[in-house]
């Protein structure tokens, strides 16, 4: 496992296969908390934190417990439980030992359990990578991709407030169309490689 390989994984997870704009993972929080850049940044950081640790743990559990006992069909249940417990633990740990970080991330942490980016990253990592390091780097980089996307979009939405769309386009429809335009910009990185499916 060389550095170049890890960099390749990171680059493709952040830019080419961006979680939001090409894989559609984590779209709900993306649309929900991108109203202003500072909350978007807080959410992005909390997601990065959780995905990195959860990928490390779910990959370990898959290798050490599920695979030896041929329980892979329980992946979904096992992973979502691990993630829920992890988020709860993290919240308690941060509250006790790193209060600064807790106050910065606090309100976003409980929302993360049901963020499909976390479970998605865990399932994708188990499916496509063979070492813990690769899986963790993939998780971290995907989360950074989420952070980049949500920050860019928070900037876009700040401007969108001043726009005056037709009445029925107001609110969510115009937000979705703006997200579509951002996704178009991101598809430039992949050179619109249609031979490769996004799933």
């Amino acid at each position: 496992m060389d550095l170049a390989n890890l960099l390749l994984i990171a680059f493709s997870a952040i830019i080419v296969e961006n979680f939001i704009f090409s894989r559609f993972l984590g779209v709900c929080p993306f649309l929900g908390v991108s109203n202003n850049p500072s909350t978007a940044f807080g959410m992005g950081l909390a997601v990065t934190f959780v995905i990195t640790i959860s990928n490390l743990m779910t990959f370990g559990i898959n290798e050490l417990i599920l695979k030896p006992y041929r329980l892979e069909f329980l992946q979904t249940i096992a992973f979502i439980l691990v993630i829920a417990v992890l988020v709860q633990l993290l919240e308690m740990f941060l509250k006790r030992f790193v209060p600064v970080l807790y106050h910065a991330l606090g309100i976003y942490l409980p929302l993360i359990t049901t963020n499909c980016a976390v479970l998605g990253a865990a399932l994708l990592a188990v499916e496509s990578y063979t070492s813990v390091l690769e899986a963790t780097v993939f998780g971290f980089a995907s989360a950074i991709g989420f952070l980049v996307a949500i920050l860019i979009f928070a900037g876009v939405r700040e401007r969108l407030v001043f726009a005056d769309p037709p009445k029925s386009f107001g609110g969510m429809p115009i937000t979705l169309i703006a997200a579509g335009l951002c996704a178009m910009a991101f598809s430039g990185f992949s050179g619109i490689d249609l031979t490769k499916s996004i799933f």
Partner: protein
Amino acid sequence: MKYPITKHLKDGLLENNPVFVQFLGMCSALAVSTSVINGLGMGLAMTAILICSNVFISLLRKLIPNEVRIACYIVVISTFVTAVDLLLKAYIPSLSASLGLFIPLIVVNCIILARAEAFASKNGVLDSLFDGLFMGLGYTFALISVSLIRELFGSGTIFGIPVFDPLGLQPLLFFQTPASAFITLGVVTALVKAITNRVRARKAPKIKI
């Protein structure tokens, strides 16, 4: 039953449509809307899971302690999701392959958790069953309407049957890109909003008189 079926029907399909009005479950709605078959399959899988989880949670609503209810809901939901995932893999492997990750991700789909929390945990079994059925159908309706547009313009087919070829038209590759999912959903949502607003405006004066 507390509510008539027609109320559930209207709520799920139009007035409280999970995708067009509540903006829940957007991830899967955007991702699998590349073809009508995918949209329909995903919608029906979701409906089945929604019905099962609603009924189960409604049955258990007096047993589940309030503090740990979300964790309990997630366990119930993920059980049904795993069952549906394995069934699809066994009997419709092609659909399972094209929906891929988004079947296991139904576990964290906000529609199911939202219905469990907002409806099934407060209402009887029959009401929850119909709520699950029509919310699921509302989601299916949204997926089909978006995927119909994307498949027609993106590949020139409907249900895999070529439509553009006999007419001598070329499909627009743009409708296969992720960006088009956001834009198509945005436009369809605006259309639904415009129609419901117009219907409401037409009804409003009658009530006043």
